[in-house]
């Protein structure tokens, strides 16, 4: 009982490939987030699952049934659109009831299901309003209620929060998450926002250039990114990536600026090292020992982000306590802790590969 994507590909008429061999299994009842930069094909993938876009190759199975040729209404799912797709001429109540009426559900049942759905998203008082009389967050709730009222167990969401302001987005994020848990929905959620993906997902699918980069839990994706793209897509501020050379069996020289100790031997000579801003060390020093110059300091309240220019090119950001004193143009020495990632020249993560060879 799950949704299975097998070698899903999509080509548009001009021969442009938007999805290339995408395979994944989405468990029933899980919160599955598809994330990637704009143009990576994530919305197309969702529309293919919904049946709004024709698949070019591959199969989609929902609950052991191949749905490739089924029309959207026969796939037994609901969808929340970025624009909410509310009917401007219908009241909140009628908007929520629309799908049930289309499916000719018994009117008493419609009544109770719509009322329950509206209660669940706290919109009971606004049931007679028209969409234009609602705020952005309320419209979003109507769209959610519509998904709740339908008894479909799979809900698709296409960037549902991107039309809301930052504060409302955090609030709705929690509401959607709570709703999904409460109803046991299988939620397939598309976003370009890595924070949304990290905070809500059971599993994340990272798409880039129409290909899957990685599928995994938020922890796996953050701690063990499959490649440089995934590593730099997740985390704020983004991971620092610098070129490095192996100068002895156990030592990597990073950017000619500092050295790190390899946890285990690696084969490659030229690699790239990724260090999260929180794992970088920065100390005040004189011009002679400095390997970097501070460009800017961002104060975030309990932390500061130091942006520095390395002597041999490249820029890094370092997270420090807000009590630490650093100022622009200061000479500093930046080094890395034991926690870092190693990528080969193609960008693949080889941090653990060596360990496995070693073991």
């Amino acid at each position: 009982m799950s949704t299975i994507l097998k070698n899903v590909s999509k080509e548009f008429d001009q021969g442009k490939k938007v999805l290339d061999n995408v395979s994944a299994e989405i468990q029933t009842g899980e919160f599955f987030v598809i994330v990637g930069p704009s143009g990576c094909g994530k919305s197309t993938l969702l529309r293919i699952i919904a049946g709004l876009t024709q698949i070019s190759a591959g199969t989609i199975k929902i609950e052991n049934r191949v749905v490739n040729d089924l029309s959207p209404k026969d796939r037994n799912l609901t969808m929340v659109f970025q624009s909410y797709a509310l009917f401007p001429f219908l009241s909140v109540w009628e908007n929520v009831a629309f799908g049930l009426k289309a499916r000719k559900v018994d009117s008493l049942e419609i009544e109770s299901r719509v009322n329950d759905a509206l209660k669940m998203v706290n919109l009971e008082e606004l049931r007679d309003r028209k969409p234009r009389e609602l705020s952005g967050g309320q419209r979003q709730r109507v769209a959610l209620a519509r998904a709740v009222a339908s008894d479909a167990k799979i809900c698709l969401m296409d960037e549902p929060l991107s039309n809301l302001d930052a504060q409302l987005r955090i609030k709705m994020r929690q509401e959607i998450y709570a709703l999904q848990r409460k109803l046991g929905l299988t939620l397939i959620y598309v976003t370009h926002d890595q924070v949304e993906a990290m905070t809500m997902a059971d599993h994340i699918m990272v798409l880039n250039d129409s290909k899957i980069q990685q599928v995994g839990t938020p922890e796996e994706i953050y701690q063990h990114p499959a490649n440089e793209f995934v590593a730099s897509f997740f985390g704020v501020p983004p991971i620092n990536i610098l070129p490095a050379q192996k100068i002895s069996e156990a030592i990597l020289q990073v950017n000619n600026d500092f050295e790190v100790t390899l946890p285990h031997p690696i084969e490659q000579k030229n690699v790239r090292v990724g260090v999260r801003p929180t794992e970088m060390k920065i100390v005040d020093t004189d011009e002679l020992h400095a390997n970097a110059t501070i460009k800017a300091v961002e104060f975030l309240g309990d932390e500061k982000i130091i942006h520095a220019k390395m002597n041999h090119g490249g820029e890094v950001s370092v997270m420090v306590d807000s009590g630490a004193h650093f100022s622009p143009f200061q000479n500093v020495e930046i080094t890395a802790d034991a926690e870092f990632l190693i990528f080969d020249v193609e960008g693949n993560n080889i941090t653990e590969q060596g360990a496995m060879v070693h073991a």
Partner: protein
Amino acid sequence: MLKSPTTDQTISKKQTVSKSKSTFKLNANDKYFSLLFLGPSLFILGLFVFYPMIKTFYISMFLTNTLGKTSVFAGFSNYAKLLQSPDFLNSLVVTLAYVVGVTFFTLAISLLLANLASKKLPGISIFRTLYSVTMGVSVSVAAIFWLFIFNPSTGFFAIIANALKMTPINWLTDPKNAMWAVIITTVWMNLGFTFLILLGAIESVPQTLYEAASVEGASPRFQFFKITLPMISPTLFFVSTITIIGAFKSFGLIDLITKGGPTNATNMLVYRIYKDAFYSGNYAQASTEAIILTVIIAAFTLLQFKFLEKKVNY
């Protein structure tokens, strides 16, 4: 919450107005200042619309000679006489039948065509062009074209009827058929414009509404009646008003195809006014008819606004 920005705007508008007060000599709040802007259009409207209307009403109160000069004051007796004349009442009935027929078929057919042409199908742009092409056809060309088609011996319908071994219909000489002939021709003429306007309206319905509906389980039929129709209802209202008024005012096609005949079967009000004034020289009667027509059209439009507009969504 929603209201506060608008009040802000009005405040800022007031401020700019008060600023301009000090720089310009003319006072923006002055009555005469607004007349300066209204003046040109008021002059043109007055000369070509209001004056003729008042003059028509004035003439309808008199008896006139063949030159249109008023002679004896008659009050409303012209109206009383007309409303008792079976000839005029026939014109009223015929006009109403024509208006209803034209409006119904124009809207139904153009809605059907617009809905078809809005589908994303290969080669659909050819049909879009074809369906809207009557917009560029002049009344006289259309009349000649349809006269050929209706011709009882060489016309298109006659050829088909002959091929099927049926008697060809006398389109223009039989009073019952003549009305249909005029309605068909008018509807054909109207189609291009209404089709184009309705197509525009249908195309501007957000695609996601249909997508959402189809995911929710709505059939194409359900989508048409529950999404497309309500979404384009303002446009439908506009188009129906225009079509009704246009049908009431129909003249050219009647003159070119039936000349009001046979036996007054297509003698619409406007055509009657024209004949009374310029053939019979009965200007008083023509003016009276014109005023009655104006009142009918105004009443129709008012009724439409009153009842239909409530059903028009947002």
